């Protein structure tokens, strides 16, 4: 029992990172009603930005947030405005295909520029731990991921509750026509929403870059994690996304603990299937 504490602790901390990986995807699914297949690749793009700014140009990891996250907002905004908005309409598949295509283009662009080599962004705290008891250690980078993830989701929540734009985004997701009749330009609002979603993806990408190794193709792995978290949580609940991130991460790490590292992903997906079977709308789902 005692040796279970470490994977559970790691799982909880990793869950915070999973939540922030997923929150942008789930927000866009809830608001624009589009499954953004490029989410993972856009996220990894920010990991590479982090590589360039921190490892190559020597910017401090802290300041890199202030460069990459606003940049991600503009990328998301124009991605929605120039590409997704054009194909938004009656049918489901055109936006999916465009998003999928953007993902493939990004992957290959990264491959071209950065080669398929594994990369990681080394930061000072990378391997440090805090010992709670002699056998239980808190990895500092996981703790950082968790805290930043929690902080970002809290800020996002406040933004959606308290600002005109945040309320307009929620209103448009509730009833698009009614929102337009209130004077909301829903296309513009969608572009802002994608910008904000991509900001969260950028934070996730930077954290992933500092925590794990990544390749040009890693994006799709994280897309699956984001998708899993969004399904477990159900759409439209931020608290749910956070809890679901923790559930998925703990399930993965416990699976890895009992069955070996090769079974991490599988055990995560088994939890996903169980949730789909028992509560198809997700644990906290409102839609």
């Amino acid at each position, binding site marked *: 029992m005692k040796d279970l504490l470490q994977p559970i602790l790691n799982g909880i901390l990793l869950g915070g990172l999973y939540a922030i990986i997923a929150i942008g995807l789930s927000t866009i699914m809830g608001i624009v009603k589009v499954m953004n297949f490029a989410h993972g690749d856009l996220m990894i793009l920010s990991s590479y930005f982090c590589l360039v700014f921190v490892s190559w140009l020597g910017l401090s990891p802290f300041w890199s947030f202030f460069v990459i996250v606003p940049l991600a907002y503009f990328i998301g905004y124009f991605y929605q405005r120039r590409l997704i908005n054009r194909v938004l309409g009656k049918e489901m598949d055109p936006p999916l295909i465009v998003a999928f295509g953007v993902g493939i283009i990004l992957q290959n662009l990264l491959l071209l520029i950065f080669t398929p080599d594994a990369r990681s962004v080394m930061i000072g705290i990378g391997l440090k731990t805090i010992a709670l008891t002699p056998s239980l250690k808190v990895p500092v980078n996981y703790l950082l991921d968790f805290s930043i993830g929690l902080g970002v989701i809290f800020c996002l929540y406040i933004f959606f509750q308290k600002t*005109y734009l945040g*309320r307009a985004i929620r209103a448009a997701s509730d009833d698009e*026509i*009614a929102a337009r*009749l*209130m004077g909301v330009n829903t296309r513009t609002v969608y572009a802002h929403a994608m910008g904000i979603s991509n900001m969260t993806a950028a934070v996730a990408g930077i954290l992933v870059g500092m925590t794990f190794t990544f390749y040009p193709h890693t994006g799709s792995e994280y897309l699956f994690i984001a998708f899993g978290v969004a399904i477990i949580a159900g759409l*439209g609940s931020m608290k749910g996304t956070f809890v679901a991130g923790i559930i998925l991460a703990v399930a993965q790490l416990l699976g890895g603990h009992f069955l070996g590292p090769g079974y991490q992903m599988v055990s995560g997906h088994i939890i996903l299937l169980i949730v789909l079977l028992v509560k198809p709308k997700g644990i906290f789902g409102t839609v």
Partner: protein
Amino acid sequence: MSKGLALRVTGIDVFYKDFHALWNVSLETKEGAITSVIGANGSGKSTLLSTVSGILAPSAGTIEFFGERIDGLPPHETVARGLSMVPEGRRIFPRLTVYENLVMGSYSPRSRTLRSRALDKILELFPVLKTRSNQMGNTLSGGEQQMLAIGRALMSDPKLVLCDEISLGLAPVIIKGIYKELKRINELGITIILVEQDITRSLKAAGYAYILLQGKVVLEGTPSSLNEEAVKKAYFGV
């Protein structure tokens, strides 16, 4: 030229997908008036309002709002000019609170500065909304939702309010109350266009009426000048 006119619709044709929904429809509303548009289901009433508000664009004809062309403008621009709508079926945002629903009504930049004054005015008009202010929109009763929809439309400090079937699905006593409030709103100087299936009530409230049948204006006049037989004939098309 068109001074004193809040709205002038001239000869509009509107297609809804492939369906020719409005044929050469013309309509005028004087500033400060209550004008009624009556018609059976599918006569094009809602299409007319959707076109005026900018959700649909006419393929021919013009729409002038206080002398300014607005045909083809998207809703966020018509709202910014002072046009507001109480949509059919109320369309309350279900997962926003009553307060947030009202605040959404003042989303347009022009009305944001007036928000707290407008809010006070509306809560005075519909006190029940005050007690419900932190409830989710979908927890209100039908009558309360209709009051909220009207209140939300007034939050933008509009010059003209389009009301689409505000009595639909409500108990007669509630409808009566809502019509009384509409009169009060009109007395504040806001022009109102009422779209209804209910002939009697709507003619009683309005100063001028249009009757639509299959996308065409078939009869118009002041309620006192319209005789009941003619109205019935126009309404049913027999």
